[in-house]
């Protein structure tokens, strides 16, 4: 029996050996070497265009299937599902009173509650904030079960296609990406530690730049991220702060693969901690201890010191403070805008058709999220570098922050919201309710003075 298996066994080993070698060579030639030199073969774009055609076909089939059953496809509308009147509290209440009792500006009217009542119920049906903390709904299906709402309209052909998709994504793409990710991170830690041994100087910065770029590019390929950079002449320069809208931890990789930044963040334990400690050996990043984060003066001082030193890289900050689902930009925290240096805004917009980049941290942990990322089709995004902005005369930090936010929202085609991203986890502050009460009181008391 054993002698029967022996040659077969040998053959198997040989085959495995050959396929591994072939695989690694392909990996090296098509992915790692281009990453090192920052070149691209255009394979990813071809892949993206092919996928788009398949998605369109899938949606058409579903529409056909739905028509046969005489039903309608569920089409999500992220621009709002109900009509909301833009009139302010005062305008609406005065209007109601005028049409009711014919006396505009009179005292309390029992119909006043209609305004609050309707506004309240409108916000129950559709509000501007809570929908920003879950993944955006797609108009066409991208063959991922996680984003399908018209499940009952799927035909056999589509199911087969979907099954094929699962095989490709989990069987081929996922292992490939995981290998690349490990390579990229491993190289980063290893090479930055070596560079850390060099004396400070031009050579060290030059090498550190090259190493960082190379490793981030490998990571970009590990996610099959297809990124289009616009307006690169506005890229952030030393002594400035780069601010961008935040959708996922991947934002860092996307920006850092096109330029060198000094990162800001909390010191973590585990693998993240190892990476952080290695990175800081090669060039100065700003890592804060957990306790230091609460001390706003300390944070501001360290940032200003870094910015004042023109030899240090521009700082990368995400002023929203949390991940938002890339349909809007939420309130920017004013801390980074108080420092008084040039701000380089960057807008990042993901194309959700290929893979949902948003990290819903209340639903998924980091590992789950990375698995989702690496088993999607691709991450496609556009990055716009906006012209630098500085604080103007008579403008305070909050106004400056809002101005930058508006510019980023406009460029990326995102909704500009005043709400705080912290509402993802925390309750809204009482002071906003008090503002509403104050406004209404003015309407009441103002009527008395007439």
């Amino acid at each position, binding site marked *: 029996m054993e002698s029967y298996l022996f040659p077969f066994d040998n053959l198997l080993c040989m085959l495995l050996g050959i396929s591994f070698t072939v695989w690694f060579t392909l990996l090296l030639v098509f992915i790692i070497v281009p990453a090192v030199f920052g070149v691209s073969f255009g394979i990813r774009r071809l892949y993206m265009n092919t996928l788009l055609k398949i998605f369109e076909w899938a949606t058409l089939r579903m529409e056909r299937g739905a028509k046969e059953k005489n039903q309608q496809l569920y089409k999500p509308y992220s621009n709002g599902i*109900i009509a909301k009147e833009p009139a302010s509290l005062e305008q609406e209440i005065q209007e109601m009173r005028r049409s009711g009792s014919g006396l505009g500006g009179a005292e309390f009217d029992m119909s006043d509650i209609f305004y609050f009542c309707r506004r309240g119920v409108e916000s129950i049906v559709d509000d501007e904030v809570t929908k920003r903390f879950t993944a955006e709904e797609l108009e066409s299906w991208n063959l991922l079960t996680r984003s399908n709402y018209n499940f009952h309209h799927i035909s056999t052909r589509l199911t087969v296609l979907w099954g094929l998709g699962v095989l490709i994504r989990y069987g081929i793409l996922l292992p490939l990406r995981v290998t690349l990710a490990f390579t990229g991170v491993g190289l980063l830690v290893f090479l930055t530690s070596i560079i850390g041994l060099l004396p400070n100087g031009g050579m060290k910065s030059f090498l550190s730049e090259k190493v960082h770029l190379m490793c981030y590019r490998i990571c970009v390929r590990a996610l099959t991220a297809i990124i289009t950079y616009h307006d690169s002449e506005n890229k952030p320069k030393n002594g400035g702060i780069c601010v961008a809208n935040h959708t996922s931890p991947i934002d860092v990789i996307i920006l850092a693969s096109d330029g060198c930044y000094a990162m800001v963040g909390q010191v973590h334990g585990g693998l993240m901690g190892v990476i952080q400690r290695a990175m800081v050996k090669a060039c100065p990043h700003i890592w804060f201890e957990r306790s230091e984060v609460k001390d706003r003066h300390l944070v501001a001082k360290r940032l200003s010191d870094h910015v004042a030193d023109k030899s240090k890289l521009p700082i990368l900050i995400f002023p929203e403070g949390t991940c938002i689902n890339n349909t809007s930009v939420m309130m920017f925290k004013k801390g980074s805008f108080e420092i008084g240096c040039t701000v380089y805004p960057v807008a990042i917009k993901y194309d959700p058709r290929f893979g949902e980049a948003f990290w819903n941290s209340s639903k998924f942990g980091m590992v789950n999220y990375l698995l989702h990322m690496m088993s999607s089709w691709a991450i496609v995004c556009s990055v716009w570098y906006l012209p630098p902005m500085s604080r103007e005369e008579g403008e305070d930090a909050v106004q400056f922050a809002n101005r930058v936010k508006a510019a980023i929202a406009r460029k990326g085609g995102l909704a500009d919201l005043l709400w705080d991203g912290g509402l993802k986890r925390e309750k809204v502050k009482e002071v906003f309710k008090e503002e509403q*009460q104050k406004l209404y*009181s003015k309407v009441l008391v103002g009527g008395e003075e007439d």
Partner: protein
Amino acid sequence: RWRLFSDLLYKHNFSEIIQRASKIFVSHSQITRLYSRFHSLDKGENGALSREDFQRIPELAINPLGDRIINAFFPEGEDQVNFRGFMRTLAHFRPVEDNEKNKDPSAGEPLNSRNNKLLFAFRLYDLDRDDKISRDELLQVLRMMVGVNISDEQLGSIADRTIQEADTNGDMCISFSEFIKVLEKVDVEQKMSIRFLH
């Protein structure tokens, strides 16, 4: 853990839900949208909403009458509202024109009739459900709407004046019929309606 399974569950029950729901809300697409909304508010994924689920909506939390509105969704003494209850309460806000499409004579007065809209608003005032708005109940609602910006005396006189104007039978309370009379010229149908865009 994977969102997949609970979503699939929801989807299989879905056609049943639409069937039953179409007695309340006629349009399938509106029902679907409301169901999707219900699902996204239901953080515990147990098919029912609690008061906390509503309070998580920032625009509702800053509404001075937010708590009263949330109460309107929960039947007497209950802490959970299912999708049917959710829709029944929201159905009060359907525009009156919608009724043209659903002329079912056996259905009785539709939830979104002018009368029922006024009753909804009346119940926001009438906390103890005794079909009368007392001076205290009126003061409570006024205080919720103005916060700390108006003194007790001023608020008291506003309440007194309002009751005086509305009260016709001299019991120092506002009954539902007196409420209707006071608001007869107000365009309730328009002010208490929500229009879907699609």
